[in-house]
């Protein structure tokens, strides 16, 4: 049995049989040997089995050999303790030891294996400490009170305390971080059953503190600060860029004005620059959005490429999931940018100036119209289950109903705005208060644009809930590709050869 045990584990076994009276010294000795041999272990996940074999008198072992201690070191690289051995409380071992002490007669009849599995880190000095203190109770001379051991530590009578002590002393410092990483990267994989996966998951979960540690919080804050600094740098850059553009436009217009005056085309008076698209005021919100959108388009092109490659290469569902999630997040980023732009200049969004001309043709309250998009793209998601077809159809209908409601609300808004401006110019009406009312209506417009964007975002989200990962990936690819073609069409159209005038 012992040989089998040894060979199965590439062990170094210290066997020593001594008379019972010297057992305590022996244990200290073997622990010291441990300490010496430990630095030669290959990894920090050395598992050590401390086996105390308490045997009964046996002709094979020889008369004096009542107690055999074997310790083995195995440099196995198991990363989890996949088997939990039954560990008996030390005081019970003590009871048996006392039984041996008092009762010289052989054959107490019990042959028990007490095993303690522990992971040692390289702090070998801990091992010769009082950590296995209770074992010192074997000391023959012990006339100590039963709740104190030889080096003065309290006698551990409770398993919970014992295991806490051992965990505190023997578990390596990186254990929790490693477990956290393992938990994050744990996958069922192709060959494991759900039960195995679930039990590994639960085991890791019990070893990991999932709330944010101080270090993690600080890291996160640093990262957030970096992001904020980056954002403000981008905004500043956009602002400066718009200043430059505005300046050159200004000189251009002054030149035109000069020319026009010379030709007698202008009688004087205020030059209405608004129709030239130059409002005369620098709007940093718009500039920020334009830069952000340009970056967004570049990112989007990259996303589309990745999706296309992934779908053609038939990658795993996990990888597709990652791509789908990042694709969705990318759209959420766009909606966030649009919300900021709406606060800065709602007319900019409503005019669709940020989109390519062909896209602008389909503009609906500052963006795409969800039900139309669903109609166009759903055929590309085949095959859909019966339930999915029904769900998509319902989503389309609901979206359309909400779109109609929004659109009628917009019409009402236009009507009231027109009415508030079309009052009798010769009448006694209060210009100021009428303007104030009109301003209020324009605030309402911001609400409508925001609600339309919410509708777009919620529709996308709902679709991602109805579809499988693969279908969602195809959907995102179809959507991205669709808009990409519009942009390409716009460029082609702008570059087309025209009749000379």
């Amino acid at each position: 049995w012992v040989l089998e045990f040894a060979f199965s584990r590439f062990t170094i076994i210290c066997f020593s049989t001594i008379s019972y009276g010297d057992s305590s010294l022996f244990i200290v000795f073997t622990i010291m040997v441990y300490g010496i041999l430990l630095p030669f272990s290959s990894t920090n996940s050395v598992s050590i089995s401390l086996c105390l074999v308490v045997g009964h008198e046996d002709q094979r072992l020889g008369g004096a050999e009542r107690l055999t201690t074997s310790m083995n070191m195995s440099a196995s690289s198991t990363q989890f303790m996949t088997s939990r051995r039954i560990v008996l409380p030390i005081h019970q071992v003590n009871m048996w030891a006392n039984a041996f002490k008092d009762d010289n007669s052989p054959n107490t009849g019990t042959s028990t294996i007490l095993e303690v599995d522990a992971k040692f880190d390289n702090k070998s000095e801990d091992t010769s400490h009082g950590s296995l203190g209770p074992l010192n109770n074997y000391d023959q001379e012990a006339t100590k009170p039963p709740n104190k051991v030889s080096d003065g530590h309290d006698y551990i009578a409770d398993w919970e305390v014992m295991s806490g002590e051992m965990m505190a002393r023997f578990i390596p410092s990186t254990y929790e971080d490693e477990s956290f990483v393992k938990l994050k990267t744990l996958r069922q994989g192709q060959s494991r059953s759900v039960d195995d996966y679930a039990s590994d998951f639960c085991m890791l979960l019990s070893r990991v503190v999932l709330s944010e540690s101080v270090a993690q919080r600080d890291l996160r804050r640093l990262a957030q600060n970096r992001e904020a600094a980056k954002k403000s740098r981008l905004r500043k850059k956009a602002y400066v860029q718009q200043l430059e553009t505005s300046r050159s436009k200004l000189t251009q217009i002054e030149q035109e004005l000069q020319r026009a005056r010379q030709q007698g085309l202008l009688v004087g008076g205020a030059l209405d620059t608004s129709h030239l698209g130059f409002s005369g005021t620098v709007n940093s919100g718009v500039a920020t959005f334009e830069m952000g959108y340009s970056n967004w388009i570049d990112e989007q092109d990259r996303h589309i490429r990745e999706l296309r490659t992934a779908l053609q290469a038939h990658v795993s569902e996990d990888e597709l999931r990652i791509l789908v999630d990042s694709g969705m997040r990318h759209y959420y980023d766009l909606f966030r940018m649009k919300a900021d732009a709406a606060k800065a200049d709602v007319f900019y969004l409503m005019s669709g100036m940020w989109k390519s001309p062909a896209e602008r043709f389909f503009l609906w309250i500052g963006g795409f119209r969800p039900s139309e998009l669903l109609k166009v793209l759903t055929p590309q998601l085949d095959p859909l289950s019966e339930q999915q077809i029904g769900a998509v159809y319902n989503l389309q209908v609901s979206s359309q109903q909400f779109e109609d409601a929004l659109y009628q609300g917009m019409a009402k808004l236009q009507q009231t705005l027109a009415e508030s401006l079309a009052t009798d110019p010769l009448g006694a009406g209060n210009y100021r208060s009428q303007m104030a009312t009109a301003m209020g209506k324009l605030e309402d417009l911001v609400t409508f644009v925001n609600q339309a964007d919410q509708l777009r975002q919620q529709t996308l989200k709902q679709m991602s809930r109805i579809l499988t990962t693969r279908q969602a990936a195809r959907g995102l690819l179809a959507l991205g590709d669709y808009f990409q073609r519009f942009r390409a069409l716009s460029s082609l159209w702008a570059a087309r050869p025209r009749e000379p005038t």
Partner: protein
Amino acid sequence: MEAVMRLARERGVVIFTKSSCCMCYAVKILFHDLGVNPMVHELDQNPEGREMEKALMRLGCTTPVPAVFIGGLFVGSTNEVMSLHLGGSLNPLLKPYRALS
């Protein structure tokens, strides 16, 4: 608050609006399209309007109007109604209150 809750229980579908609010108008249109006839209370036409507006804000809306109650229970503003509808849960909620046509 009691005024709000009392009015909210008077009918199956109750909406608090302001006559100047166009989003409220949009929500009204939506409910009509779905086949219900909501009871509309315009806060700016109501003497207790200011108090009711404050009470509605306390219910958790960022904007007091439109505020939708179905079956006496507070549903929310435009966003909540929209999410419910896109998720398919609005129609079942409205079923008992559909106008018999």
